């Protein structure tokens, strides 16, 4: 297929813009400045402990010759341990230490970079003569595992990181606009955020009130509404927002069914309030069927004259329900969470399913149902941890996946869309 686009036209140079070479020089200079600044910041991180340990060593040895060895037994990377070594050597030298080979030194100092559950521990073992070594140590708090960067890897399933937080996220809804807004549901609150530049800024925190404890594998759903901003469905609780400013939210004890569909297909189902699944009672009835096996999640595939519903049941099977029959799908290897996404690829309707595996990562893959057999429609998208929720967005063109990141311990919310790769 050939594509004919408009011919490229380049803007003339802006008169006050400096020549390219000059700009490159400035950029290089600026980059150098940033690197020097970052390096200095980095070095400063250890400077207090370096000085402290050096002072303790000098107290034990006095100024003079020493052989020094540094052994890294901690999780610090090589470049950091090298930097720490340089810093300690500098501090010792300024305090009068002279470094010589082991055979010429009266004092042998071994510095261990170690760590316990909460601290970095730097230990100096000082040997003078044949006696017992003297020990000096300093400690400094060890931060939690650093937040890893999440690349929005474009594959057939595009996953865009929306939000990350310590508390378990149950669902996220994005209100696209200018500026865009985002709602983040967790066990205690609905956070309201506004997109400012490239960052989400919190505007409001609406508390979720409830009297009974949440089930262990708590689940929740945010649904955008037309007559008011949003609804929240939680086990045994329903919360409704106001329509406009000031934005408030009221929560009630409720066993009302949760909406499971999207703008394209409507279905509600009753949630077991002290469990993590839907009871199987659905409304409106699916043809002749007003109940299906108890299930964790549902997806749909529109047909010409009916809608095929898929239920990831608690018996581990996927049930295909068309209003007449309840058919168990052939072995799929799916997990408990499925959701429908409407796209411009293939048939236009893909079912996203997390795939059941023993690996340390969860994956999501798209499938199509030309008939009753699932056909793989995308490559698997990997997530760095266990998926705790997968819901279709109200618009139906994307889904929200919540992942408990195994590296950071945080909950990450992703928006999943199908990228046709064209």
């Amino acid at each position, binding site marked *: 297929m050939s594509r004919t686009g408009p011919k490229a036209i380049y803007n003339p140079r802006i008169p006050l813009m400096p020549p390219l070479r000059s700009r490159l020089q400035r950029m290089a200079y600026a980059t150098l400045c940033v690197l020097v600044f970052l390096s200095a910041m980095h070095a400063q991180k250890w400077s207090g402990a370096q000085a402290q340990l050096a002072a303790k060593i000098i107290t034990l040895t006095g100024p003079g010759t020493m052989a020094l060895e540094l052994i890294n037994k901690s999780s610090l990377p090589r470049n950091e341990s090298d930097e720490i070594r340089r810093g300690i050597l500098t501090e010792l030298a300024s305090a009068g230490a002279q470094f010589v080979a082991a055979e010429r030194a009266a004092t042998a100092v071994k510095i261990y970079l*170690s760590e*316990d559950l909460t601290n970095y521990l730097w230990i100096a073992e000082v040997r003078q003569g044949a006696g017992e070594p003297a020990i000096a140590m300093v*400690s400094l708090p060890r931060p939690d595992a650093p937040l890893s960067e999440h690349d929005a890897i474009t594959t057939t399933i595009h996953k865009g990181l929306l939000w990350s937080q310590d508390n378990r996220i149950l669902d996220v809804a994005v209100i696209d606009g200018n500026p865009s807004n985002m709602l983040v549901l967790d066990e205690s609150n609905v956070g309201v955020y506004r997109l400012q530049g490239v960052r989400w800024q919190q505007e409001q925190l609406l508390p979720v009130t409830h009297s009974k*404890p949440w089930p*262990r*594998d708590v689940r929740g759903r945010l649904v955008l509404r037309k007559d008011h901003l949003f609804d929240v469905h939680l086990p045994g609780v329903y919360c409704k927002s106001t329509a406009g400013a000031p934005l408030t939210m009221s929560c009630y004890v409720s066993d009302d069914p949760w909406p499971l569909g999207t703008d394209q297909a409507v279905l509600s189902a009753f949630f077991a309030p002290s469990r993590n699944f839907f009871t199987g009672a659905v409304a409106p009835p699916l043809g002749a069927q007003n109940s299906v096996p108890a299930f964790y999640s549902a997806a749909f595939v529109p047909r010409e004259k009916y809608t095929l519903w898929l239920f990831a049941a608690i018996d581990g099977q996927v049930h295909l329900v068309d209003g007449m029959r309840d058919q168990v799908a052939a072995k799929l290897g799916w*997990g408990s969470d499925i959701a429908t996404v409407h796209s411009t690829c293939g048939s236009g309707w893909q079912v996203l399913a997390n795939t059941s595996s*023993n690996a340390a990562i969860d994956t999501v893959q798209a499938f199509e149902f030309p008939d009753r057999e699932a056909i793989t429609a995308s490559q698997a998208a990997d997530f760095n941890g266990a998926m705790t929720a997968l819901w279709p967005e109200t618009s139906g063109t994307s889904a929200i996946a919540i992942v408990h990141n*195994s590296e950071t311990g945080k909950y990450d919310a992703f928006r999943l869309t199908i990228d046709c790769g064209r």
Partner: protein
Amino acid sequence: MTRSALLSIVAASLLASVAFAAVRPRYGGILRLTTGVAPVSIDPANSTIDTLATRNIYRLMFDTLVVLDTRGKPQPALATSWQAEPGDQRWHFQLRPGLTFQDGTAIGADAVAASLRAANASWKIFPTGNGIDIECQSPEPSLPAQLALPAYGIAKRTAGKLAASGAFAITRWDPGKKLTLTARDDYWRGRAFVDSIEIEMGKSSRDQMIALDLNQADVVEIPADQARRATAEGRHIANAGVDLLALVFSRDARSADESKLRDALAMGIDRSAINNGLLQAQGEPAGTLLPNWMTGYAFLFPAGLNLAGARRMRAETLAVSSWSLGYDSADPLSRIIAERILLNAHDAGLTLQLANSATPDLRLQRFPLDSLEPHIAITRLAAKTGTLLPKFGDDSPASLYAAEAALLQSKRIIPLLHVRNSLGLGADVRNWMSDRDGTWHLEDVWLGAEKP
């Protein structure tokens, strides 16, 4: 412990914890456990048998005011907050409102105070509205972490019957034989996934392994020397904390000569050979009471064989060593290790003989790690071994190091190995998780069903 070994353990636990993660947890089913211990009481304040299993069983039934996170830091549980008065001798704990025991009565300040008094008679405890005040005999800067110990689980005691405050209610208890627990729907952290837990007690290792293979048990204890074989035979094995294996003398050394003999014994034991040969590499040679991942300094204490040093030390004294060595006669592995120690001692010029008496000169003992908070862990170890309780200048690692060094200097205890505890898991067990101190999280375990 080497970094690679540590990493492999962490990786293994991580894999175990996230296995089958794509499948949402299933409610229901009976989780069947077996254990070798046979306690006659399940009262946490009246525990006569202290093993990893008994401790974890207490945790199922009795919540504590505070829990420790994976870094050993106190986090709210039945207490929502706490504050010390200046001097750390008197503390106030604010209780979580609206909680009940399994019989429906409120877990109020009076009930909590009564429960803690049963666990520690030396504390003065005063109910204060929605909280309690605890006055200790001396400053206790680590009191919140101490209250996370299973012994301080909150229980209601009425006419010899116990009511649980935790995730599971006690439904049947045949002392020393079987305990049946049922998940509480109203549990404040959310109902456990399994409906009930059945714990068969007093089972031999062989019987436990057979029960696992015949699918009559879901979680069984695997002795350290059989863990590797069990893995090779295709069983799913999970690590669950480490125990300290140590020699403990019944009294302090009475002379410098006796101290030297004890040093000679410590130097002459080939820990690596015991680990690699007898324990199938399920442990790490130890020169300290607490493992290195907990303190960061354990590698400073030698744990390798130093036979020349041992002989030299032995030769420096004319004192005669003729110690009796006790061991757990119910544990075949314990006897084999004791016999190996006898040989090592002989090589170093020391005389030991195995003893069945109740009061041997020294005893081969195994101690579970009591807490992820190192000051608590080492204090508890000192108490169990009858050594002088350590004194900490502050809560710094240097102070911990000084306290442990002083404890070892007393020559009352010779650390040998940190031995990994292993459990065999049935094919249906999902989401098994264990902290590094061996705490199980059975309320998060669920039972899978095979997919078609």
